[in-house]
């Protein structure tokens, strides 16, 4: 049976003719409302309950952080108009003109309250302390000045603050330690922010409705109402867009992109890439479980890793598997990001002859058998990418079979380090290579949060030193140099094999534009109608 999306693709073609001729009959929603088809629903409206993209993007319509990330992950002023730092002490000057949607003024007390609340939210499945763990103290100097002290010099504080929405202290206080509880906030009680939209109603699984915040301090929001509808199935989202039920759909299936681009009723927009798909190879033990036909772990030999990289035709994967909605990668972050090594900006070209020669040189002229672990349904086309890799490696004699598992099973094996080779992915939300390296390649020290996703077991003290030094270097130029140096070592070592960067995609009804974002968030304030 062909995948659902393919079946749907052919249906689309059949339906397109009928669709165009009956365009006028389609039930168009009211012009001043925006309906968004979500690929997954927020788990909670409490903006500090669960670090999850589907939650964050909704809270960013209702709340604002002190500083915000723009579409390319760059830092911009938001509630704080300017800031300075000296060593570990940061001073933020707040915008005095801002009021909450209930009319009360926004002050430094709200910032202190909000950052303080993070650690008190109970039962969080993925706590926001991730973004406050470097913060030692937060003080209100006066009504519009906040002083934040970090535990050690920490240049990425502003990137972390971009994930911390500011709640209204008056509205979100309550008898519980955390003030308003998650349950109350889910009902909209105390859910008062300074953002362009405010809460109206939420019926789990059906729809979440926001209304325009007339007290918003920026340009007047365009939509009277924003309606989010969870639509898990991509084919249903596409049908709903074509039928005029929704205005914006998240993540159109890559197999349908050609049909959508040809359809005058809809347009497709792609955001800057930030998520890399890569292959990890076991580099920490001599006997590796997924390899047969050799006595030792072949991936300990850099020539084998290089051969595997050379065997991959990255451009072919982008063109044929990803439907063009990706960029071939030579690095773990896009070349435009802070600290990316300029020497690896280009994706390496495939070279089968050289790959075979390298394998022979390393003593594997006859190749070996390999099992490649991959998730199925976690990343765009993940299982198909794995199949393609298996075919490409088999060409140089590494006879690869794919073990594609449901994400819960894949991640168990991945964190247990039981794969010899695996397909995984990392989304960079800081805009600089340091955070990616810290998680993926630094020597594992999970207690300190270093190398938490280094499941290939790579360990290189030189890289550790450079990245950790960079992480606490406040001078941007010096930091960039340190990080680029570390990045170069990692890539020259073929530590991980970057494949491509996913391009976040949206499909819109004709007449709308969206400022597509690298972080894949769908923000209603950035959807506009064409004037």
């Amino acid at each position, binding site marked *: *049976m062909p995948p*659902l999306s393919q*079946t749907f693709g052919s*249906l*689309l073609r*059949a*339906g397109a003719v*009928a669709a165009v001729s*009956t365009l006028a*009959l389609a*039930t168009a929603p009211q012009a001043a409302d925006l309906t968004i088809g979500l690929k997954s629903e927020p*788990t*909670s409206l409490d903006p500090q*309950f*669960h*670090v999850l993209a589907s939650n964050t993007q909704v809270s960013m319509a209702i709340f604002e952080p002190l500083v915000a990330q723009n579409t390319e992950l760059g830092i911009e002023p938001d509630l704080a108009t300017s800031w300075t730092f000296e060593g570990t002490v940061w001073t933020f000057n707040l915008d005095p003109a801002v009021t909450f949607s209930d009319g009360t003024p926004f002050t430094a007390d709200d910032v202190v309250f909000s950052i303080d609340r993070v650690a008190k939210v*109970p*039962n*969080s*499945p*993925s*706590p926001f302390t*991730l973004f406050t*763990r470097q913060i030692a103290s937060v003080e209100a100097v006066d009504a519009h000045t906040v002083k934040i002290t970090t535990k050690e010099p920490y240049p990425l504080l502003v990137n972390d603050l971009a994930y911390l929405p500011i709640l209204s202290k008056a509205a979100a206080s309550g008898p519980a330690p955390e003030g308003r509880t*998650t*349950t109350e906030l*889910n009902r909209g009680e105390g859910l008062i922010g300074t953002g362009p939209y405010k809460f109206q109603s939420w*019926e*789990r*699984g*059906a729809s979440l409705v926001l209304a325009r915040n007339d007290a918003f301090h920026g340009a007047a929001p365009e939509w009277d109402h924003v309606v989010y*509808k*969870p*639509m*898990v*199935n991509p*084919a*249903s989202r596409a*049908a*709903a867009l*074509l*039928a*005029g*039920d929704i205005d914006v759909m998240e993540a159109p299936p890559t197999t349908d992109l050609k049909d959508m681009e040809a359809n005058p009723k809809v347009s497709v927009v792609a955001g800057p890439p930030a998520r890399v798909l890569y292959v990890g190879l076991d580099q920490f033990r001599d006997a590796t479980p997924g390899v047969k036909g050799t006595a030792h772990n072949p991936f300990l030999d850099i020539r084998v890793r290089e051969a595997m990289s050379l065997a991959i035709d990255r451009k072919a994967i982008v063109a044929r598997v990803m439907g063009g909605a990706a960029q071939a990668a030579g690095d773990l972050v896009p070349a435009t990001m802070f600290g990316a090594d300029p020497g690896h900006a280009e994706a390496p070209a495939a070279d089968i002859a050289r790959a075979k020669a390298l394998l022979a040189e390393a003593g594997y002229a006859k190749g070996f058998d390999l099992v490649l672990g991959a998730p199925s*349904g976690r990343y765009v086309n993940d299982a198909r990418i794995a199949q393609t890799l298996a075919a490409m490696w088999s060409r140089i004699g590494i006879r690869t079979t794919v073990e594609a598992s449901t*994400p*819960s*099973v894949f*991640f*168990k094996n991945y*964190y247990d380090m039981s794969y010899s080779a695996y397909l995984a992915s*990392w989304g960079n939300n800081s805009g600089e290579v340091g*955070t990616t390296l810290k*998680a993926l390649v630094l020597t594992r020290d*999970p*207690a*300190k*949060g270093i190398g*938490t*996703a280094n499941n290939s077991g790579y360990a290189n003290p030189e890289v550790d030193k450079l990245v950790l030094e960079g992480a606490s270097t406040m001078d941007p130029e010096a930091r960039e140099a340190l990080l680029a140096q570390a990045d170069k070592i990692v890539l020259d070592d073929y530590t991980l094999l970057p494949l491509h960067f996913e391009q976040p995609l949206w499909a819109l009804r004709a007449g709308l534009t969206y400022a597509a974002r690298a972080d894949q968030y769908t923000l209603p304030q950035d959807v506009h109608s064409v004037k």
Partner: protein
Amino acid sequence: MQAFIVNRILQSLIVVLVMTLLVFAGLFVIGDPVQMLVSPDATDIEKEAVRQSLGLDQSFVVQYLSFMRDALHGDLGNSFLTGAPAMDLILKRMPATFELVICAMILATGIGLPLGILAGLRPEARSSKTIMAGSILGFSLPNFWVALVLIMIFAVGLGWVPASGRGETVQIGPIAVSFLTLDGLHHLILPALTLSLTKMALIIRVARAATREVAGQEYIKFARAKGLRKNRIVGVHLLKNIMVPLITVIGLEFGRTAAFAVVTETIFSWPGMGKLLIDSILTLDRPVVVAYLLLMVVFLVFLNLVVDLAYLWLDPAAREKGRD
């Protein structure tokens, strides 16, 4: 009769107990919910804190026993993912699923039963052969495909109905229903039709077989010889006697459809509980999965009981047996 019901309830308690143990153990083996939930940047200390707050740091036995203790007090735990009580999440979505399933079963019975009887009364007629061929299609076309075709034709192509979602609802007591509003009906028709097709096919075939069997019986011939009107023969004598197999099919199918309407719900983005189950399985949200299956076992056992009681009521022979 009472002994029969008590027996049934005892049986179902054992089923529930075994089921919770299996689901609990199954999800325990599959993976670690904490790894699925927390950000991959999290430190071990942060992960451990999440594990403790969700009670996942305890051994399997302790977790299961404390679940059973809470369950006996009527608390099935909170969803890992949303923090909300698992039972609340399910009960809030139940009306949407039941509305869909009831409409589908009404469609299936309302159309399937007359067609099946028709095909049974005149098995050689061309119309009957068309009906039977149609029922084969109803069986063999996959649900998701039918759903997509219906969406493409009626929502995207003709624009008569919306492609997905549930329409405007009105409150009846604590329950929100959508079939009482025009907008609600508009949204309901396609998913209900999709869901009804396989059931309709099944009902047609069962009704036809039963009709053919009953139509040849002596009492039908006798009724005809007595000069009774055809409507009365079919509507009373025949219908009553083909009801036993039909009730079984309708009852059991109703339960199955309600418990597993997930494909249709997913494609039509219908905010029912089937979708919740799949999402919860994928994220290893154990409290929701266990609560859902628990509810479904109880529901199916209850439905079986109702079907059995309906036999007694419809079939005098079975009633005699029940008295023994």
